């Protein structure tokens, strides 16, 4: 079967974000980029599913700035067979991104039997692309997936909802599965894997090549700012047992009278 995995390159979670000088996005020049953490679960699930379904191929698709293909090479080194990069700004909106992924899949000439993504990208936090992609491709989608079982396209998927409750879905046929942490344990690329990755095919398309243009813009961002800093709070020393009862009573009192949250 043809398995597609969509990945995004995002700033490392430890990144200190700074708005750029005109407030149109963030300063990206000195950022350490990583594979979106949720996408690692998608890549791993693709590899597990390929291993269980012989004759499958995995294609990884990334929409983003062309300057750096390291994240795609990482996926290839983990065991993905081929890669497609759509050269686009890193802050493309969700609709354009979904349309670009759809275009890239169509241009590959393969029919997607399974599409895996992360449940969200941790840069724009929109949580839109998996569902939009599914809708544009007229496929079902299951998001926030923490359990994946089945053969070929006959799948039982466990979706995590409020309070840790689980919805169990059955699908048979192509679908989009958006993966959550806890689904599996993503592997590290092996040294032979890294060597092999260098020779695996990587196709690059422009947005125009796959039919995405300015008419597809749906969301406009401006005024990127840091959130307002809170004024310094009150700090109480309570390492000694003798201090604790008084400190706790004072804090609880302040929560009621000053902060008015109780």
């Amino acid at each position: 079967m043809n398995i597609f995995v969509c990945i995004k390159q995002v700033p490392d979670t430890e990144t200190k974000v700074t708005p750029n000088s005109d407030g149109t996005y963030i300063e990206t020049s000195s950022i350490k980029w990583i594979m979106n953490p949720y996408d690692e679960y998608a890549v791993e699930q693709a590899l597990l599913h390929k291993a269980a379904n012989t004759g499958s191929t995995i294609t990884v698709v990334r929409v983003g700035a062309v300057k750096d293909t390291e994240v795609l090479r990482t996926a290839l080194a983990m065991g993905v067979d081929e890669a497609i990069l759509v050269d686009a700004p890193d802050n493309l909106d969700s609709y354009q991104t979904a349309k670009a992924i759809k275009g890239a899949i169509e241009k590959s000439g393969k029919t997607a039997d399974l599409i895996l993504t992360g449940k969200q990208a941790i840069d724009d936090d929109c949580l839109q692309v998996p569902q939009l992609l599914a809708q544009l491709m007229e496929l079902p989608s299951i998001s926030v997936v923490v359990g994946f079982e089945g053969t070929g396209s006959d799948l039982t998927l466990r979706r995590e909802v409020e309070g840790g409750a689980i919805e169990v879905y059955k699908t048979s046929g192509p679908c989009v599965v958006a993966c959550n942490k806890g689904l599996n344990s993503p592997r590290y690329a092996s040294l032979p894997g890294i060597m092999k990755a260098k020779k695996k095919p990587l196709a690059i398309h422009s947005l125009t090549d796959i039919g995405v243009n300015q008419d597809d813009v749906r969301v406009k961002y401006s005024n990127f700012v840091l959130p307002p800093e809170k004024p310094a709070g009150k700090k109480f020393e309570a390492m000694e047992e003798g201090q604790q009862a008084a400190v706790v009573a004072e804090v609880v009192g302040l929560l009621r009278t000053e902060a008015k949250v109780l």
Partner: protein
Amino acid sequence: MANVLVFTETQGEHVKSVTLEILGKLAGHNVDVACVGSLSDIATADLAKYGAGNIHSLTGDKLDKYSPEGYSNALHGFIADKSYDYVFAGSTSLAKDLMPRLAGTFNAGMASEVINFAFEGDNFHGTRPLFAGKCLAKVELVGPKPHFVTVRPNALGLPKSPTAGAGTKALVAVSAGEITAVIQEIIKGASEKLDLTEANIIVSGGRAMKNEDNFKILHEMADVLGATVGASRAAVDSGYAAHSMQVGQTGKTVSPTLYIACGISGAIQHLAGMRTSKVIVAINTDPDAPIFTKADYGIVGDLFQIVPILTQEFKKLLN
């Protein structure tokens, strides 16, 4: 004045509080409400009190349980022949899944999880956190209408003196269409409490909790406060808590009224996920822990000593 539809979900007899927050903020516009299934009298009265004009209950086969395709088809059918400029919903676990798909059926744009919004004339603009709240940006929507917006629970707050609407109830027959991914069963979570993203009070534990068992002292405090228990990534990665409890950039971003951080040092990705909490209390043995820079009230002390005393104080105050 914009024509707006607000999609609502219920929790028992009540509509989710975020719906009322949205209605309050939309005062002055033409606002209808839609839900899938029926609404109690209490829910209807609340919606009317906060400004709902028409209240549409969508009913049809295969809509007793949520499915992305069924709900999306049903709402698309209902919305398609109306002239709504905007469709709003609270950013709940269901709406996060449903709304992008529904927006896709109209090839329309969507602003996810705004924390504030306003209109200039009929044009929406909102504020939304990016990078888990490390920065904020202004968001506007262009292209075909209706435009879609989801709003983070607890961010807007309830209006003090809401403007009532007509609250006219209508039953609407809709079709769920073809559903290819079928829900088989729903397994209840360990907790019946509000999800972290909707909780008004959160008690959260970090690596210093040392093990899963120790979380019971946080649950005891949470029970007294009616709070939901959360955890830091360090605690989740160490196996002390489930990922559904994780607060931060690779977990949930939360805005409760009160956030009590116990034994959490305050890694940048954790602070990003909870810094918009209205009031933050931090308990940590390290006086230089970064969490204290965000805390309104910091207690330098051992959580295993402080938390039980705190629980007793809360009990005294609230009983």
